[in-house]
């Protein structure tokens, strides 16, 4: 999609979604987007109201990112946009065109070697049902990178946006603490 500068808004107040500036004119209810996810570019034709979470799961079949509450309260859908953790359920897919998106599928090395946070979650048994785990791990990777994993208290505060209804919190904190130490050394 080619974005354009609005100088003369349409008289009826409704912009046409197609933005025909690049010559191709999608239907008024469809956006043609290119999203960069885990280093790969994906072309998508979607309605404007589609969230990044639904685009990942329903269109690109990257189902590692979980849908929990779907209203920004549980953290299960945490992904990285330009290296920062955000909630995919409150992010419009159209909004992150041109940004670099990382999901849980993009965390391990290409040879399958797990990220230090993934390995620490396994070692500390930092989950029970596992549904919140991709979000916990994506959040923890960013938490450590931000420098907000300096103590158990700080880990608890800065991981507070990821709920675990199984109550694996002590083990999650232990896993984040260990991974932070490993990644610092």
């Amino acid at each position, binding site marked *: *999609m080619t*974005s*354009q*500068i*609005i*100088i*003369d*808004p349409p008289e009826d*107040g*409704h*912009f*046409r*979604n197609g*933005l025909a500036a690049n010559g191709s004119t999608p239907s*008024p*209810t469809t*956006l043609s987007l290119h999203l960069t996810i885990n280093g790969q570019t994906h072309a998508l034709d979607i*309605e*404007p*109201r589609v*969230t990044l979470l639904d685009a990942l799961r329903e269109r690109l079949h990257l189902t590692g990112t979980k849908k929990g509450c*779907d*209203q*920004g309260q549980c*953290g299960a859908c*945490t992904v990285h946009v330009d290296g*920062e*953790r*955000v*909630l995919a*359920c*409150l*992010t*419009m897919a*159209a*909004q992150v065109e*041109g940004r670099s998106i990382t999901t849980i599928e993009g965390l391990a090395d290409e040879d399958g070697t797990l990220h230090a946070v993934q390995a620490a979650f396994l070692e500390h048994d930092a989950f029970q049902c596992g549904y919140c785990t991709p979000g916990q791990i994506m*959040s923890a990777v*960013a*938490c450590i990178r*931000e420098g*907000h994993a300096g103590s158990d208290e700080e880990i*608890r*505060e*800065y*991981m*507070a*946006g*990821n709920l675990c209804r199984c109550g694996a919190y002590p083990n999650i904190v232990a896993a984040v603490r260990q991974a932070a130490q490993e990644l610092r050394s």
Partner: protein
Amino acid sequence: MRDFSYFRADNIEAARNAAALPGAMLLAGGTTLVDLAKCGVAEPATVIDISHIEGLNAIDASADRALIGALAKMSHVADNAEVKSFFPAVSEALWQAASAQLRNMATIGGNLMQRTRCPYFRDPANFPACNKREPGSGCSAIGGVTRGHAVLGVSEACIATYPGDLAVALVAFDAEVDLGERKLKVEDFFLAPGATAEQEHDIRPGEVITAIEIPGSAAARRSTYMKVRDRQSYEFAAASAAVGLELEGDGRTIRDIRVALGGVATKPWRARAVEDALKGKALDEATIREASELAMEGAVDHGANHYKIALAPRVIARAILKLGETA
């Protein structure tokens, strides 16, 4: 969520033009708009994505003032070294709000436009009566479950609590919001419900927040944000206080003090009666506790939120006493 047309504005002028259109809403971080669109509360015909506009996210802070671009992220402002040094209450209000993920998304301008968390406002399917959504339709909260509702600044039309933290600190330190053609005190930018609960902000069609400016002061430099809530993190305030303190050279007489409240009022609430009662007085606990009670003059509860009238003065007093212990 109802579908909408999507448009990306590349500059502020484009955003202003688009914002003037009927049914248009601005999208910055999305944490309020997308959430409310999913609830069926926000039904924009057109979403104007302003998040790609460049040059609106600068954070320029010093002892003299902080100038923060509207698109600066809450997390970046909270972690800014100068903001922490010269405006600690602002940093603390930010990092105690929401979660790390939401703070990475939400912008400073968008934060000022945050809507209430009143559960009746957020549930149009089950509660059609809401003067904020539909002027004249009534208020489902009055006579309902009111534990989280406001006790200050309420009216017969609306008792919804202003939920934010940042704006409480901004109001305490006389910050201004830049709307392009106009600059307003943040305190005046927020409107108590009165008979027009649907109007929460003094912002007109075509206006876009471009920045906030916080004047520096000794009180801002020695300040804190104290937030009391039902759980330790990731929760809205039951009551909160942004407090700043400047002492005379004797180290115990109050020269300047700022007090603003969150979680208990319909807008970010400056407690001037408390400030006036404490200026020139000695910093001792009994004086502070007595003065803090003045914040609740005119408070009106609706049953389950009665506890806020007792809680808020204690939060104010604790925050002042905590500041008194710091050098």
